């Protein structure tokens, strides 16, 4: 299992009803590609985050299938519509079955 995996998300605290906002996410993860060899020449097994999802009040914003060609410390930027006040939930799913989660509330003024 990857160590020290820490999700970071940036979501505005407030929005107008129906407003489109920009969300950025960054998670610390080596994204071991399975292509590299260690010092002894043995292949280092693949160990990546293979899926990322963002939902708002349970409804999908974006759902990303990720391959080893996504860089170390995966970064995503995308846009979400905010119909009303609620909570964004972010989930990253690791090859080893671990999930990393974060959430952010947003208020519609």
């Amino acid at each position: 299992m990857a160590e020290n995996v820490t999700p970071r998300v940036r979501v505005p605290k407030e929005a107008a009803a129906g407003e489109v906002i920009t969300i950025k996410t960054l998670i610390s993860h080596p994204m071991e590609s399975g292509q590299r060899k260690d010092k002894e020449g043995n292949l280092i097994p693949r160990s990546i985050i293979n899926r990322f999802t963002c939902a708002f009040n349970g409804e999908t914003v974006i759902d990303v299938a990720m391959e080893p060609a996504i860089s170390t410390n995966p970064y995503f930027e995308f846009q979400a519509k905010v119909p009303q006040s609620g909570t964004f939930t972010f989930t990253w799913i690791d090859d080893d079955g671990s999930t990393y989660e974060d959430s952010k509330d947003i208020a519609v003024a």
Partner: protein
Amino acid sequence: MRQTLRTGAARVMLGLAGSAALATGAIAQEANLVIDGEIEIVTRAPAPDHMENVSEIVSGWEYRSPETQAVQMDDFENPGMIGVDNARADFSAAMGPDGQSCAACHDNPESLEGARAVYPKWDETKGEVQTLEMQVNECVTERAGAEAWNYTGTRMTEMIALISSVSRGLPVNVAIDGPAQPTWEQGKEIYYTRYGQLELACANCHEDNYDNMIRADHLSQGQINGFPTYRLKNGKLNAVHNRFKGCVRDTRAQTFAPGSPEFVALELYVASRGNGLSVEGPSVRN
């Protein structure tokens, strides 16, 4: 090649005037590097007096592609800030027999604002020039009674990134005279000594040929005001002595060890070549 000459003074003028202005025949521009729209970074400045062969000092940021530059302009996008966050948590973590922590003496990381800018620095008690890493380890071992941290290990490099991050925008200002002078002279000697099978001195690339291309890479002045630096090539924060080691190794020489007196001296000298640039770490480079 850059056609424009921008000086720190020109930028200050511009900051006051708020519009494009001509200064000493050169085109003045806004500060090129502003982090999070707040922290203004001086990336070009007049060379300090002790530098005989260079008139303007330039941050390595200026040599990178627009895409790489952009990553450093937003702390959220800068993956080096992950290390800063880790160190922030570590700052108050208990260590040693009495459960001491950085925070026990220093309250919060912000209280160390300014420290990065003046290290390496003469330590009167120890009677030697100390790098920031040596100072951290002095705290860890002598104050907290804990085991020393690996000089270029992740924990140390992240802590240095944190201490550096709270000084961003402040001018690098290491002392090169007084008791530090012999160490500085030693560092200067190393800077101009050719090493390895390729017989290359630091100066051959970073003084004689900065702004030229070395294969596909745009050679910088080898400034260290941005360390620790997050490198795209290895996806992690890199300690300055590891960078020195990489350079010396590439001359096909046996390198000095991180934390060695030679690299401490070299760090003081190279840092002094950046006196006047802003502290930038954790920076983002290729």
